[in-house]
């Protein structure tokens, strides 16, 4: 559910691993992110709409990923497929870390790109070498230029 950058990348990867994949998105133009070589199904529809889910073949689906931009839509869709259609593996993206924790406690497998992103940003900052001052850089350039 959700053919954004993350959704399309995961879909392509899963399809390359020979899984049968259906990508659901509200907006047909989102499918532009899928390469033409992608053999999975592209379906315009909503992951919170029971009829759309059924047309996508939710009954008998082994895994569902909720990767839309809306946390609450991901929450509703995930709980519909988990509790009403018995999909055994459900993964839910929640930007809001609080909701991530709450719905993790309520039994959803959640992850928060906000938490992961903040952590990566922090580590990158701490690992980064201080940039040389402009004088040093001039010298460096001069030196390397001389070396060539």
């Amino acid at each position, binding site marked *: 559910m959700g053919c954004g950058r993350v959704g399309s990348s995961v879909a392509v990867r899963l399809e390359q691993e020979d899984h049968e994949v259906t990508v659901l998105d509200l907006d047909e133009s989102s499918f532009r992110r899928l390469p033409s070589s992608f053999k999975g199904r592209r379906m315009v529809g909503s992951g919170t709409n029971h009829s759309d889910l059924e047309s996508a073949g939710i009954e008998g689906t082994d895994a569902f990923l909720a990767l839309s931009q809306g*946390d*609450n839509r991901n929450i*509703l*869709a995930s*709980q*519909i497929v988990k*509790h009403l259609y018995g999909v055994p593996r459900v993964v839910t993206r929640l930007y809001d870390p609080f*909701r991530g924790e709450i719905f993790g406690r*309520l039994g959803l497998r959640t992850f928060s790109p906000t938490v992961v992103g903040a952590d990566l940003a922090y580590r990158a900052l701490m690992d980064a070498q201080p940039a040389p001052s402009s004088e040093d850089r001039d010298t460096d350039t001069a030196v390397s230029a001389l070396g060539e």
Partner: protein
Amino acid sequence: MYIVVIGAGTVGYGLVLQMLENTEHEITLVELDGRRASDLRDELGQIVVHGDGTEVVFLESIGLARADLVIAVTGNDSHNLTACQVAKQWFHVDRAIARVNDPRNERLFRLLGIDSTVSAAAAVLAQLEFDLPEHTLIPLMHLHKGGLEVVDLHVQEGSEAAGKFLRDLSLPPQTTISLVVGLDGIPQVPTGDTKLRIGDEVIAVIAEESEPELRRLVSTPQAPEADPVAGGGA
């Protein structure tokens, strides 16, 4: 009581207007749309707050932890469900009521512990069905505990119940026949000696899962084939 209403559309606004008549309640009305919130603030004052009713930090700022009741009535099921689950799980609010816009989500909401659900579609349908002469069973309200509901039954011609004394009917467990209203419109508190007649209206408290069995008891048996309306209408 401190009551937080989430969603200030027609339903939320109407509800708050009604609740304001009872001055004992402290009410906060949450609206996501800034313009709508500021319009309503001009009319209702400080009780209207602009914010996201599913956002923990915002909900903390309006003191959700001390709320006795949360009522989520936006036009969007995902917001209503999330708001109620956040209120119960994070803020330990005692009771949460959600509006269900898509009737197919009703079962999910109950399964997930939402204490009570209201569905405009279901209410309108029940109201319409009520006025059809051939109605058999209409749920009137769900009781809070035990999976019980109050229903209205309408005894049909040729049904198993028609012409029988109550004591001779085998009713599903947990069924209580509370009132029988005859065609003359006179309500009667039933006993085992009460005889059900065609056209009687019966108010009963039943277990939700008994609906099909009770519906069958008061319905005209279906002819296996021969559809009399086939080819008619349209």
